[in-house]
């Protein structure tokens, strides 16, 4: 875009500035409109699952409902507790929203990238990590011990699930050989646009782990302890009302949207799909955008489906799930990803592979033998690991402070 503007006659620095401003505006607008659409989408979808129609009064099919909600939140009183730390209390939602919007900078919309960074994956991970700061600021700045406890629990959840989330991206990086999102998308373009990573055993497990960890990062059921209103310790958002609360809500949905986009990019091939390359040019770009949006919203639909079905985990079960179940599996997944990469691409490092199975695959010729062996081996490793860890982590025992006999003996009852 900057080049186009320079050609029109603007000075080079001016065209870059204008291009950046346009992109930022588009992202902010697109993100907000996307978030509003997501709230509508979630409410309608969950209603149909519950045998009822969702909001359908405000505007055609209820599409203007998010606007009426926005007006409602803006007209509510914005009360700050008297003893609260005013600056921290004010900045907490800003930090959370800022972190979310930042991550939108590198998400490819179909084949179009706002900013193409070499280390885009690292950028996404880094901005995702800023959420915990915002949450801690919210909990601390409210001067409410329950908000503080809720904030600390929320932060514990976020940082515990960040590790599996991040490490689930590593296989993708290994398989591609680069951290740039553009290259990751391009690497999934084989087999007529359907060579997505999710179709390989490594990618499948990685997708499941990344998606589950992202559910927890986005505080969706079954991991929505921080915003659960039926848990007794109120969440970190207790002392927020009015527009500040709406900003938390906004950042929550935008981060879920961002996560859906990123999952679609990393595992489901981004804008790739049958026919994109064939069309090429503007039409191809448009088709890739449509594919991209379809994939993301299908992923969001799965999030909504899980939300409608599944009760939430208790906080200790949640932490146990992250550390004892997800973490070993991501490590195993990295191991199998390395086997995958070795089997498919190593010829210089391990010449015996070329001797036994032939040359590695190229863009035009696929070495089916090597591919088959890679698939079988990684499948065995992944499935075996899943079964083993499930067996090792099952817990059917509840801790009880006193046993019943002790209780009766102590006269506690």
């Amino acid at each position, binding site marked *: 875009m900057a080049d186009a503007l320079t050609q029109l006659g603007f000075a080079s620095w001016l065209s870059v500035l204008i291009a950046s401003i346009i992109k930022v505006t588009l992202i902010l607008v697109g993100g907000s409109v996307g978030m509003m659409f997501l709230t509508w989408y979630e409410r309608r979808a969950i209603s149909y699952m519950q045998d009822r129609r969702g909001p359908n009064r405000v505007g055609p099919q209820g599409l203007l409902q998010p606007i009426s909600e926005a007006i409602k939140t803006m007209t509510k009183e914005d009360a700050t507790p008297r003893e609260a730390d005013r600056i921290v209390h004010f900045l907490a939602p800003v930090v959370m929203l800022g972190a979310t919007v930042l991550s939108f900078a590198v998400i490819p919309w179909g084949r179009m990238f706002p900013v193409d960074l070499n280390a885009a994956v690292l950028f996404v991970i880094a901005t995702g990590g800023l959420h915990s700061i915002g949450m801690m600021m919210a909990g601390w700045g409210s001067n409410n011990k329950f908000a503080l406890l809720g904030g600390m629990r929320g932060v514990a959840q976020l940082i515990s699930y960040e590790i599996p989330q991040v490490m689930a991206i590593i296989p993708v990086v290994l398989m591609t050989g680069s951290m740039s999102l553009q290259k990751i998308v391009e690497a999934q373009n084989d087999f007529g646009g359907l060579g997505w990573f999710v179709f390989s055993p490594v990618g499948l497990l990685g997708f499941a782990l990344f998606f589950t960890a992202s559910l927890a990062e986005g505080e969706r*059921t079954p991991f929505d302890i921080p915003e659960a209103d039926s848990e007794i310790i109120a969440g970190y958002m207790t002392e927020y009302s009015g527009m500040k609360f709406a900003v938390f809500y906004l950042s929550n949905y935008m981060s879920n949207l961002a996560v859906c986009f990123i999952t679609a990019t990393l595992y489901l091939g981004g804008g790739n799909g049958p026919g994109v390359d064939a069309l090429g040019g503007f039409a191809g770009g448009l088709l890739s955008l449509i594919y991209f949006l379809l994939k993301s919203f299908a992923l969001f639909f799965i999030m909504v489906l899980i939300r*409608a*079905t*599944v009760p*939430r985990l208790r906080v200790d079960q949640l932490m146990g799930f992250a550390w004892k179940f997800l973490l070993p599996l991501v490590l195993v997944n990295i191991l199998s990803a390395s086997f995958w990469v070795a089997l498919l691409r190593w010829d210089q490092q391990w010449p015996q592979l070329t001797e036994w199975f032939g040359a590695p695959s190229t863009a035009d010729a696929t070495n089916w033998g090597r591919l088959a062996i890679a698939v079988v081996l990684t499948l065995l490793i992944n499935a075996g690991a899943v079964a083993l860890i499930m067996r090792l982590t099952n817990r059917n025992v509840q801790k*009880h*402070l*006193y046993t019943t006999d002790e209780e*009766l003996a102590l006269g506690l009852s």
Partner: protein
Amino acid sequence: MLKTEELQINIGPQHPSTHGVFRMLVTVDGETLVDLKPVFGYLHRNHEQLGEVNTYLQNMPFTDRLDYFNSMVNNHAYARAVETLAGVEVPERAQYIRVIMDELSRILNHATAMGFMLGDMGAWQTALLWGMREREKILDMFEYVSGARMMCNYCRFGGVVRDIDDWFITELKKLMQGLPHYFDDFEGLLLNSEILLARARNIGVLPKELALAYSVTGPVLRGSGVAYDIRKAEPYAVYDRFKFKVPVGTVGDVYDRFLVRIAEMRESYKILEQAIEQLPDATGGFINPKVKQQSLKAPAGEAYARVESPKGELGFYLVSDGSGSAYRYKVRAPSFINLSSLADMCKGYSIADVVVILGSIDIVMGEVDR
């Protein structure tokens, strides 16, 4: 060893999951619960005192408002108490009608109670709304026959106020066609769901001896392993003519109470089938015509009548002094008695489990506070 401090937290009375205005003073040590004190009385409406001022008939609509989910059952129990006191006979058809209404109430109560508990657990009201759909169908039928959906005011002394006709029976049969699908869907959705198992198994264990010591009744007692059901122990209305089983749990945790309630819904379905089949024709009448409802004067004496309400044993104790209203009127509310076991059920568990355990007892504050 680190010495931890105990923290006293107040849950409620204004809280989305306390099933009404109910307050719990909870003492926690870290995350583990050490003590729990229930505080209630926020919904006290002087019901028993009003029962001494009202005549027996005038008191019937007030009994609707005790367990406001199951007004038919409250009416039934109160009518039985007065009928015992005054020595009034009830024709057979009226007994069958009362049984049908009771079992429909049981189905709708368990459906909504479990739906609410799952909503508290975080399964965003999906199961609740499916249960509400069945409940709406049943409430429509209550409205047809008694005039109101919830505050039915349906039983009179010696029968019921209005007979059920063919429309009612047809619609009831249609409703029963759909119920097994609802039961299957509900079971499939949640019964073996791993997260539900993780949150309900071995939580809130109430051992058998404690349950008996607290005189807990209803699904809570049966979940703890005691096979006691008033419909079998002291059959009233025409329950001795039906073949049905009583489900019993083993461990006495939340999961067992869940399973017991689902099983009870299926047994109620069987009772309904048999009741429709055995329903006598209209020759016997649906009300005892000799009873003067408003001017009913019971001879001096006392009577206690109890029914198996969906929440437990609902009993009405009446002492009469020969006039048209009671001298002493006491309601044995199952939720109130069951609540006394809450503290012991919750000790030693995490504080997040308290809400789940409370939901599994299935209380309604109208009964607890009267």
